Each structure stands twice: as C-alpha cells, then as structure tokens.
C-alpha cells in the first residue's frame, strides 16, 4: 500500500564477525604448536629394579640439570624388568643415541666417599650420560655408573695387578698420601692371569705420572710379625679402610720430554711399598745387630717412617753389622755426611706416645739430619747424640742424694726454659751420691755462676699440711719426665768452668732456702717484713695484693728472734714499691667476708686466687704524715681488713654485770657505730666485768674523762617500745662524750643516765595524741631529739610533754619556734588543687613524733631550758617554708 521507495542497503560481502573464527584458529593453532614444541620426547628405559623411581617425580639429570622426568613406570610383560617411560626435554634430543647410558643414582655412604646425599631428601634420580650413534628412544639402564662420567678430563691409565686386593671402584690413587685420582673400573685381563684396573688421574695431577712411576697396593693394613715386633705399614686412614693405590715417581735427573704418559698406558701394580723398590739404598754400619731385623726395623725421622732395613750382613772382619736400608725416595735431602743414625730402643714413657708404638713394633732406627755432601754410607752411633752443637756447651756435675726421676736427656731448665739436658749419670766412687753429668748449651752457659743452685723439678710436689695444700710443679713435660732446674741469684758472680760440681737439691725450697736466695739480690723487687702470730694459710709464694691486684709475694718466713712471732719476708715488685709507706696496713685475705645486718648485706670477696690460696692485702690509711717505708719497718699483720684500716683506741669499761654485753657488742654514738667490744672478762675479784673495747677512727677522741657508757637494751611496753632494733641487732652501748683528759678506763652504767647536756623544753598540748616516750623530735625530718616524758599540767588543762634536744641542735630552738604533731599522714583534698599528701618520715608515721620549724629570722633570743611551747596539732604550710640559717654547735 505504501508507495515509499525502498531503501537499499548494501550489505558487505563478508561481515567483520568472520575475523573471529580466523583469530580463534590462529590462537588455537599457536597454542597447540607451542605445546608440541614444549612437550618432551618420550623414551623408555628398561630397569632391573625401579626402587625409588616415582612417576611424575623422579627426574632425569644430566650435569646436574633436570632434563626430564619419569612419566610412567610399568612392569614388563615377563615381569622381569621395569619399563620406565620418561619425558626428556627436546633440548636434550641430541643426547639420545645408541650408546647413551641411563642409571639410577641412590645415596651412597661409605667411609671414603659420600655421594648422592641429595637423593636422601629429593629421592633417587636417573642420570644420563649422552652417547653416540644413531638416534634411539628405547634404552636399557646401566647397572652402575659408566666409567667415563660426564667426559671428565684427566689421565686414564691401566694398572695391571695380580689380584684385585681391596681395590674397588672409587678407591683412591695416592701420591704422597694425597688422593690424586681414583679407580674407575676393573676387569680381568684377557689372559685371565691378572686384573686390569682402570684408573683416572685428575688432570692437574696428570704430570706426576711418568713412565718410571711405580704403583703399589696401599690397601689395608699390612702387618708383619716377628720376634722383634710387628711391622705395621699403612697408608692414610681412608686407604686403610677402603683400599687404595699409591704411586711414586723417582726423580729422574734427565728430564726427557717423551716421558709424558698418555691415556691407556699400562703400569704394574706392586704388592707393597717394599716391592715397588722405589727407595734409596743406604748402608749403615751398626756395632751389633740386636734390635735390627730385616724387613721390619724402620728408620724414622721425626716419627715419620722414611726407610726400612732390607738386609743385614756382617762386615768382612765380622765385628760390625751392615744394615742395608731402603729409604723413602723423599729422604734424599736428609742423607748427608753429617747425618747420624742410632738405634732407638723401645721405652715406655708417658710423654712419648710413639714409644708405645715402638713397644709394639720393636726398636727403630732414629736419625738426626746433618750437613754435608750426599752420602749413602753411614756409621751408626751407639747411643743418641747430644743436642745440636753439643761440643761447645758446658758440662757440669751435679751431686745428688738419689737420681729421682731424672733420666737420660732430662731437660735442664732455667726459668722453665730448656737450656740443656742430662747427659749421663753414675754413682760416685764411694757409692754415696749420684753424679749427674749435665750439659748446658753454649748460648745459655753464661747463666751458670758459682752461686747457682740446682734442684730436681721432677714430678709434682704436693705438700698437705695444716697450712693447706701446696702443689708445686714444673712444666708439664718435667712433671712427667723429670728435669733439673736452676737459678743463679747473681749473674755477675764468678763464672764457672767446665766440669764444676754442684749439689743437686731435692726441691726448690731446699735449693733456695725457702725461696730467699732467689730474691735476695733481685733488683726488681723490694723486701718488706710483716710479723704475725701464726702463719695460717700463708706459704711461700702467697701473693700480696693491693686493691686485689697482686703486687708481690711471700718469699720467705722465719721465726723471730724471740720465737714468739713469725717474720714474713715479702717481695714487692719495684713497680709497686711506692705503694708501701709507713702507713701501710697489711691484713689477711680470708676469702669471703659476709657482713649482714639490718642495714644490708655486705659481701667482700678477695680475688678467687687468694680465696683459694689465702693471701695478704694491704692498703694505706690516710694520714697527713706519710713517710717512705724504711727497711727497718716491720708491719703487723691484721686479721681482717677492718681491723687493719681502723684507727682504734683500746679502752676498758667496767660494768656491774655482763648481761647483754659480749664480744662484738657495738658502741654507738647518736646511732652510729663508733666502737666495738672486743673482749669481756671478769675483774680480778670476780665482782664485776671489764669490757675491753675499741673505739674507731674519730671516736678515739671520746676516750676522755667524763665520757659515759651505758647499755641499751630493748624496752617493750604498751606505750613504751624502745630500742626495738636491739632485739635483732643485739644490745649496744651508748656513749656520751666527755671533755676531760685522755682516759682509757671507764665505769659503765646499765641504764640510761639523765642526760644533762642538750636542751630541755616543755611542750603543751591539749591532748597527748600518739606521742610516746622516746618518740623523735625532728627538724627537717632529721632527728635532733626525743620525747623524754609527759604529764598533765597542774590544772589538768594541758598535757605537758618534756622533750630533749641534742646539744648540737639546741641552737635550732628559738622563742618563736613552732612545734607540731608529726604523726601520721596528712591528706588534703581540693576540688581544683587535687590531692596533696604530706608525710613525715616513715618512723614518724608509725611511731608518731614531733616536728618543729623556726622562722626565718635570726635576731631572736636563744631558749633556756624548760621553756614552754605550744604543740600544734597540725602544721601550717607557712612553717614548712621557713629556712633560717642557724649555726649549729660543733
């Protein structure tokens, strides 16, 4: 019906949507292609046993790189083998050829090598060794790793042996006991008459193998038993256990260039070191054949076996024995004209462990290397030679009571350094003494003078006595083998000639007269003398300490002339000489000192050494008159540091009875300990006791006429607890100093006397509050007095409190001084100011007390005794701010 003209829209021939299938095809194709590329090559490997192979996990490794993985493991149709399907990366495709080897790597732990340890964690893996030939996909696994592994460089040689011995695959090849290669494989020789051992020498050692090289079986322990002992010859421990092959290349004088060994060269394997005949033949002339045995007796240098006696024969005249010795080729440089040989017989000693071996092995020939031309013929000594350059030293004779543990070649020590050795010993003609012939080497000969003292340092001297344990040793060596030590007090002394005779003392103390000899002339020390009543743990060598640093030691002690004291001589090294003054005080280090009381624990420990050994310490007390110490001065030795350092005044106080007074009872002045009762004894008539006491330091001034002593003991009561501390600390003596003449004898009182000194004042208060007798009166929280008594006023209107202010502080009390109750805690709350807590000292809080303050004005008359003051119940803050300057009485 509609006559509208049709609109013609030309459709494009192909819609853009058709690009989509194209794109899909491209993507799909590319992804497929990629996966084809990445997908490895499937190969099958036939294993006899697939233990440890896991599908999807066990990798194929080449040169340590994972090149594939086991995909499937099937059992073969005949159930005899396992077919492992593995996927190998395409990159390794070239390696998959006819001779390619696959083998399973498992952990191997043996004494000589540990391989495949990583497989313990990662599991076993299959290794590949690429081969040649045409491409192949089916393989049969190798039972063991192939000989040539990963084309390792090196020298490949064959060694022909009669028997395999303990050589096995992996056995090492040793050159001078260093492994330089290993046995790769072995097989029967074609003739079936022997074994061919395939050996690889590492590239860097390949040059060591020459055509002249001799190989011998270094496997295991070779033991030859004989009457003179056993011949034990081993290579390194690894070779001992795992077997091995050693070789040696003799030095060829003519270095020919064609003497380079190529791969595949054949060598012969000798049975052992001897049969390899790699040695240097040397003839040694011995006086007798005792201890020598063919093929057994070794030649040792410095405990190393370097040769062996091959043959023994008599000289033509039959007097001597010629030992033909085969030396290790390395010994060439040792065989000079000056070289000496002697037969070392086995001896058992504690220090020489090789001696134990020689006991098993029999005697061996020892040697000392000399200088000169090369030589191949020697004459053996019949006993060991002396020390080096023995001719030029000094020989001395020591006369001893007995030989002790001295033996041949025992060392001679000077200050613990070996300067010579015992050369010989014999009895003197009468057979009374032993004459020890010692030799001092030339460079130390000057240490010997006519006053030298020799003693035997052999062994350990243990001296157990009441004074303690005293152990003296020489060096460790001399402890075990014995030795002789000497000192020369004065090196300038007359020199001695060869052959001089000395006495050999049995020990150090005997030789040095308790050590005095050694220090008499010593310029580096200074001798001081200390007297003591008993020696105690002190001994020779006990150290002297200054501030716990050792500065000297006791070198000597002796009884005094009167035989009532011991005089100790101590050597102080010069470095510390200035520490010794006339005011030096010495005391015993008695180790640990623990002082405990209510004021704490005080532990004083000397150095650990002195703790164990005892010791003497000293310090210098302060004094205006310090003089240099004079040689004549003799210092007393105090029992303790405290005693030593205190200036004391000995006094005697007579008491009617001794209740509460004993040794150690303190003497206190104003609460401070100023002295101590040292001894309590009865008077002659037994009517009273006399307390011997010491006043310390400044308190020595109290030993004057007028000074009073009284005993303070705890007083308990509902309103009267006093001196409670004495319950714990013990009673003590209170002192009130006098001002009279010096006096040392006093009469003590058992009760507190009326104190006359000081200021008595009376406070009046509407109520007593918590005030008790004995409460403190404090000024700025320092106790300056105490409450003595209280009573009602006559009209019962007030309480009158009698207080006492110590004389020293009396000046603090002025007419306008304010007193208040200092008891308890005062807490103020305010909405805006917050809380304010003010307390007196803790003692006041608990016991109550009185505090006072004096206004900040100086022009106020001083108070008289018994003046009455008001006692306020609380403090006004204004009072607390007062801080007048008041001169206190001295």
């Amino acid at each position: 019906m509609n006559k509208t003209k049709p609109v013609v829209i030309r459709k494009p021939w192909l819609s853009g949507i058709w690009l989509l299938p194209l794109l899909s095809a491209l993507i799909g194709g590319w992804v497929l292609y990629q996966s084809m590329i990445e997908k490895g090559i499937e190969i099958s490997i036939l294993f006899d046993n697939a233990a440890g192979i896991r599908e999807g996990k066990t990798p194929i490794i080449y040169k340590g790189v994972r090149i594939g993985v086991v995909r499937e493991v099937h059992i073969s149709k005949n159930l005899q083998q396992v077919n492992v399907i593995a996927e190998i990366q395409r990159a390794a495709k070239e390696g998959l050829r006819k001779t390619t080897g696959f083998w399973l790597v498992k952990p191997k732990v043996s004494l000589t090598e540990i391989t495949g340890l990583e497989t313990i964690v990662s599991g076993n893996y299959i290794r590949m060794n690429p081969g040649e030939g045409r491409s192949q996909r089916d393989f049969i696994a190798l039972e063991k790793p192939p000989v040539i592994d990963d084309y390792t460089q090196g020298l490949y040689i064959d060694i022909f042996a009669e028997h395999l011995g303990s050589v096995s695959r992996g056995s090492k090849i040793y050159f001078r006991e260093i492994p330089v290669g290993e046995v790769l494989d072995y097989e029967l020789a074609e003739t079936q008459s022997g074994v061919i051992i395939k050996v690889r020498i590492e590239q860097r050692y390949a040059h060591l193998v020459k055509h002249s090289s001799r190989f011998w079986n270094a496997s295991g322990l070779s033991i030859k038993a004989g009457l003179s002992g056993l011949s034990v010859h081993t290579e390194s421990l690894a070779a001992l256990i795992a077997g091995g092959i050693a070789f040696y290349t003799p030095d060829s004088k003519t270095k020919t260039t064609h003497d380079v060994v190529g791969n595949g060269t054949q060598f012969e394997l000798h049975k052992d070191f001897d049969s390899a005949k790699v040695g240097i033949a040397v003839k040694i002339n011995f006086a007798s054949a005792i201890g020598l045995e063919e093929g057994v007796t070794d030649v040792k240098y410095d405990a190393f076996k370097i040769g062996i006696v091959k043959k023994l024969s008599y000289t033509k005249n039959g007097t001597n024995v010629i030992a033909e010795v085969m030396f290790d080729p390395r010994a060439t440089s040792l065989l000079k004209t000056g070289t000496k040989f002697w037969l070392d017989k086995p001896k058992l000693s504690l220090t020489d462990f090789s001696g134990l071996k020689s006991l098993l092995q029999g005697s061996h020939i020892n040697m000392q290397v000399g200088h000169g031309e090369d030589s191949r013929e020697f004459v053996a000594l019949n006993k060991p030679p002396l020390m080096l350059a023995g001719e030029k030293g000094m020989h001395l004779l020591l006369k001893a009571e007995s030989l002790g543990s001295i033996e041949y070649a025992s060392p001679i020590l000077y200050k613990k350094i070996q300067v010579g050795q015992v050369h010989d010993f014999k009895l003197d003609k009468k057979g009374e003494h032993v004459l020890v012939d010692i030799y001092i080497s030339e460079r130390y000969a000057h240490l010997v003078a006519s006053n030298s003292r020799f003693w035997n340092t052999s062994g350990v001297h243990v001296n157990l006595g009441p004074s303690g344990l005293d152990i003296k040793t020489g060096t460790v060596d001399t402890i075990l083998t014995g030795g002789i030590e000497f000192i020369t007090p004065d090196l300038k002394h007359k020199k001695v000639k060869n052959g001089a005779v000395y006495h050999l003392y049995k020990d150090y103390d005997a030789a040095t007269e308790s050590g005095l000899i050694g220090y008499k002339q010593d310029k580096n020390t200074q001798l001081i003398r200390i007297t003591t009543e008993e020696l105690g743990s002190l001994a020779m060598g006990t150290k002297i300490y200054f501030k716990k640093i050792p500065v000297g030691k006791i070198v000597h002690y002796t009884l005094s002339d009167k035989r009532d004291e011991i005089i100790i001589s101590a050597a102080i090294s010069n470095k510390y000489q200035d520490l010794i003054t006339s005011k030096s005080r010495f005391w015993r280090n008695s180790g640990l000192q623990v002082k405990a009381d209510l004021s704490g624990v005080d532990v004083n420990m000397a150095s650990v050494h002195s703790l164990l050994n005892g010791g003497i310490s000293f310090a210098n007390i302060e004094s205006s008159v310090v003089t240099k110490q004079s040689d004549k001065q003799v210092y007393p030795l105090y029992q303790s540091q405290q005693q030593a350092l205190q200036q004391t005044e000995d006094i005697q106080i007579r008491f009617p009875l001794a209740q509460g007074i004993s040794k150690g009872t303190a003497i206190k002045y104003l609460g401070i300990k100023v002295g101590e009762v040292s001894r309590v004894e009865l008077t002659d008539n037994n009517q009273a006791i006399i307390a011997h006491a010491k006043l310390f330091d400044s308190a020595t001034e109290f030993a004057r006429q007028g000074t009073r002593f009284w005993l303070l003991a705890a007083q308990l009561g509902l309103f009267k607890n006093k001196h409670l501390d004495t319950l714990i600390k013990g009673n003590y003596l209170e002192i009130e100093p006098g001002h009279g003449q010096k006096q040392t004898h006093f009469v003590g009182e058992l009760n507190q006397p009326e104190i006359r000194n000081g200021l008595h004042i009376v406070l009046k208060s509407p109520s007593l509050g918590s005030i008790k007798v004995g409460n403190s009166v404090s000024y700025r929280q320092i106790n300056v007095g105490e409450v003595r008594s209280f009573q009602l006023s006559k009209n019962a209107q007030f309480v009158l409190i009698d207080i006492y202010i110590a004389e020293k502080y009396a000046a603090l009390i002025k007419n306008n001084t304010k007193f208040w109750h200092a008891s308890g805690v005062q807490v103020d709350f305010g909405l805006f100011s917050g809380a304010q807590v003010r307390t007196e000292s803790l003692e006041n809080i608990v016991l109550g007390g009185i505090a006072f303050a004096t206004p900040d004005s100086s022009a106020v008359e001083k108070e008289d005794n018994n003046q009455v003051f008001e006692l306020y119940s609380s403090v006004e803050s204004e009072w607390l701010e007062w801080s007048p300057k008041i001169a206190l009485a001295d």
Partner: protein
Amino acid sequence: MGNKPVSALRQAYLCCRVCHKTLPQNAQEVVQCPRCHTQVYARIPHSLAQSWALLISSFILYIPANVLPIMTLNKAGVMRTDTIISGIINLANIGMQPIALIVFIASILVPLLKMFGLALILLAVQFNWQRNVCLRTKMYRMIEYVGRWSMLDIFVISILLGIVKFDKVASVDIEPAALLFESVVLLTMFAALRFDSRLIWDDINE
C-alpha cells in the same frame, strides 16, 4: 493444525527486544522504541552470520582446549598435569565416579551438545528445513539456559587456584587449556545470544 500461526512481523509489527513493546513496522528500517529508546529491528541484523562465526570459533578452540592440559596439580613435589578428559578419568579411577560424572556432563557433554545443537539449529535455518520446528525451539531454549553451566570447570579451577597455595607441599597452576575452554564456553554463549530464535520459524508455512 487448523490455526496457522501468523507471526507479528507478517502483520507489520515489531517487538522491542528490551521492553517487549509491540510497535507497528515503520517504512524506515530503523525504529526507535518510544518506551526504552532502543533501536528496534524486525530481526537481529546478521544474526545467522554472527552466530555461525562465533560457533565456528568455538569449534576451532574446542580442539586445543581438550588436547592441552587444563591444570597442573603439584602435590608434594609430584607434578600432575591433566587435560579435561584425563582429569575426569583420574577422578573416576580414584573412586569418585559421581563427581566424575558431573564434571563430564558439565565439561564435555554440555558444551558438545550445545555446540552441535546450535549448529543443527543454524543449519536448519540456513537450509530452511521445515521439520521439527517446535523441537528446535525447545532445543534453543535449553541451550541458552544450560550454557552457563559449562563454566563449572572454570569455577573449580579458579577456586582451587585460590585455595590450594601451599608452596612446595601442594599448589595448583592453570594451563593454557583453561583459557581456551573458557573461550569456548563464552563463544557458544555469545553464539546462542546472537541467534534470533524467531528465525527458526520465520520461513515456515510459506
């Protein structure tokens, strides 16, 4: 069949695809829906060609999606790479046949049915087959409905990928096939979407 169906288009009516408003066909090709301002066509333009293109793309990608591995499961060092089919077989082998069946239906059967069903419908429209119109319509509805369930595999993999992350002990990695399979599913869904179902019966009864 006394009452022959007469389509709206034949009666010069268009239907808005968005709000389903029925509009009279205008002289102009392009009509705008007065209600939702969508352009209203008689039939989706190029519907058949677009469906074909998408369907063919999905067929092409379906091959690598099934040949290549879909995911790698690393369990304590043992790597296991699975394609869809090998995964299903593995599931069945370890005794989880019901799950294997579900995965098989969702991953193999449904996509295949969908693709071939769609192909059948497209062919029928293309070559103007007259039979079984009703069946084809029902088939189309079913294809459109069931299409999203093919995503099951992808869901499983993506959940595993997120959850199983224990480094060396166990981990899951996706492989290229997952992406390809995803593409296949999407492409078939789009193919079904672009196909205008009205084309099925447009040319019958002529």
